[in-house]
C-alpha cells in the first residue's frame, strides 16, 4: 500500500506538524497520511529528533521545591495503560476513526447534492476538516481557497487535471488554484479535506447553497 503513494507531504507541512504548529485539522490530515506512508513517517521522526536535540539543549529551569518527591509519590497511583490498539486495516486509519467515531459505513453522512455526501469532523476558526464520499464520476463543487487545502484520499481515487490521487495521496491546493477533483468511475471516492478558513464556492448555485450546507 505504502509503495503506491505518489503525492506526499511537503517538508514545510511536516516540519510544522513536528514542531506542533499546525492547526488541529491539518494535524489530522498529516497524522492520517503518516499512518499510511512509511516514507513520510521516517521524515517526521527525523524532524522529531531535531525537537529532541532542541529540548535536550534547552537551559534547565529551576523546579518547584519537592518536585521529584511529588513525581515519585504519584507513580504508583497511575496504572500502566493497555498497549495501543493494533492497526485495524479498515478504510479509516486510527486517528481519523477517532474523529469520525466509526468506520465509513456506520457514519452519519449528509447529502451535499448529486453524488456527494460529507461529514464535518472539525469546525474551528483556524479551519475545518471533513470527510467526503463522492460517487464515481461525480465532482466536488468548483471552489477557490482562502488558505491552503489538503485533500487526502482514503478509498477509491480522484483525478484533478492530469494528476491521479489514490489511497494515501495528498493533494495540496492554495488560494491561487482553481481545481476540480473528479472521482474516478467505479467505487465511491472517500477523502478527507482540511482547510484553513472556509471553502469559497464559485458559481451561482453552489454559492447559494453554501449557507444551507454550511460548507
Amino acid at each position, binding site marked *: 500500500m505504502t509503495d503506491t503513494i505518489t503525492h506526499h507531504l511537503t*517538508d*514545510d507541512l511536516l*516540519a510544522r506538524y*513536528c*514542531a*506542533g*504548529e499546525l492547526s*488541529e485539522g491539518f*494535524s*489530522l490530515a*498529516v*497524522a*492520517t497520511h*503518516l*499512518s499510511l506512508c512509511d516514507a513520510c*513517517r521516517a521524515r*517526521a*521522526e*527525523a*524532524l*522529531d*529528533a*531535531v*525537537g*529532541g*536535540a*532542541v*529540548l*535536550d*539543549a*534547552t*537551559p*534547565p*529551569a*529551576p*523546579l*518547584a521545591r519537592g*518536585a*521529584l518527591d*511529588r*513525581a*515519585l509519590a*504519584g*507513580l504508583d497511583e*497511575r*496504572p*500502566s*495503560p493497555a*498497549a*495501543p*490498539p*493494533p*492497526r485495524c486495516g479498515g478504510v479509516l*486509519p*486510527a*486517528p481519523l476513526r*477517532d*474523529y469520525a467515531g466509526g468506520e465509513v459505513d456506520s457514519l452519519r453522512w449528509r447529502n451535499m447534492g448529486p453524488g456527494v455526501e460529507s461529514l464535518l469532523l472539525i469546525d474551528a476558526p483556524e479551519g475545518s476538516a471533513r470527510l467526503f464520499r463522492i460517487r464515481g464520476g461525480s465532482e466536488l463543487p468548483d471552489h477557490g481557497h482562502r488558505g491552503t487545502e489538503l485533500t487526502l484520499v482514503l478509498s477509491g481515487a480522484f483525478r484533478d487535471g492530469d494528476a491521479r490521487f489514490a489511497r494515501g495521496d495528498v493533494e495540496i491546493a492554495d488560494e491561487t488554484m482553481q481545481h476540480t477533483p473528479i472521482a474516478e468511475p467505479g467505487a465511491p471516492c472517500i477523502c478527507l479535506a482540511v482547510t484553513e478558513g472556509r471553502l469559497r464556492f464559485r458559481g451561482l448555485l453552489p454559492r447559494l447553497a453554501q449557507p444551507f450546507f454550511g460548507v
Partner: protein
Amino acid sequence: PPRSPEDPDWTAAMERIRTARDRAAFARVFRHFAPRVKGFLIRSGASEAQAEDCMQEVMATLWQKAHLFDPARASLATWIFTIARNRRIDALRKERRPEPEDLAWGPEAEPDQADVVAFQQEARGLAAAIAALPDAQRSLIERAYYGELSHSQIAVETGLPLGTIKSRIRLALDRLRHAMT
C-alpha cells in the same frame, strides 16, 4: 561521537524503568529532563505554574508508557520532546493532537541491540550537528520547536518575506541532514 560523562545511557535507565519499575532510574531521568522540559514549556509560552504541572504530567507519562519507548527509533530526549509537545498543545491551545497510528511492535518485537546502538549514535550526531550550526540558523530551529515561530511573526521581526523564512528553515534542516552523512 564517544559518549561523554554528561551523556549517560538513558536507554539502560528506561530499560530499568520498563522491566523493574525502578524508581532510582526514574529519579535519574527526572533530574536531567524535568528542568529541561519545564524550561522548554516556559519558552513555549507557559506560565511558571503551568509549566511545573505540565512537566509533572510529562514525567508521569514517561513512567506510565515506558513500555512504548523504542530506543531503535528515538533517543529518550526525542521521545520526551514528543510527549511535551503534545501536552503543550493539549494544555495551552486546548486542542487535541492527532497522532499517527502505532506501528506494529511491542514486547514480542524487542529492538535489536545493534539497531539501538546505531540509532542512538545517529541521535548524538544530530545533536552535535545542531550545536555546531551558525547561531542564526540554530536559533531559527529552536524557535520553531519552542512554538515561537508563527511564520508571519518572524517575518515581521526580521523584515524577511515569508518565502525566505521557509526556505531558510528548509536549508537549515538540509544542512543538518548533510552534517550527519
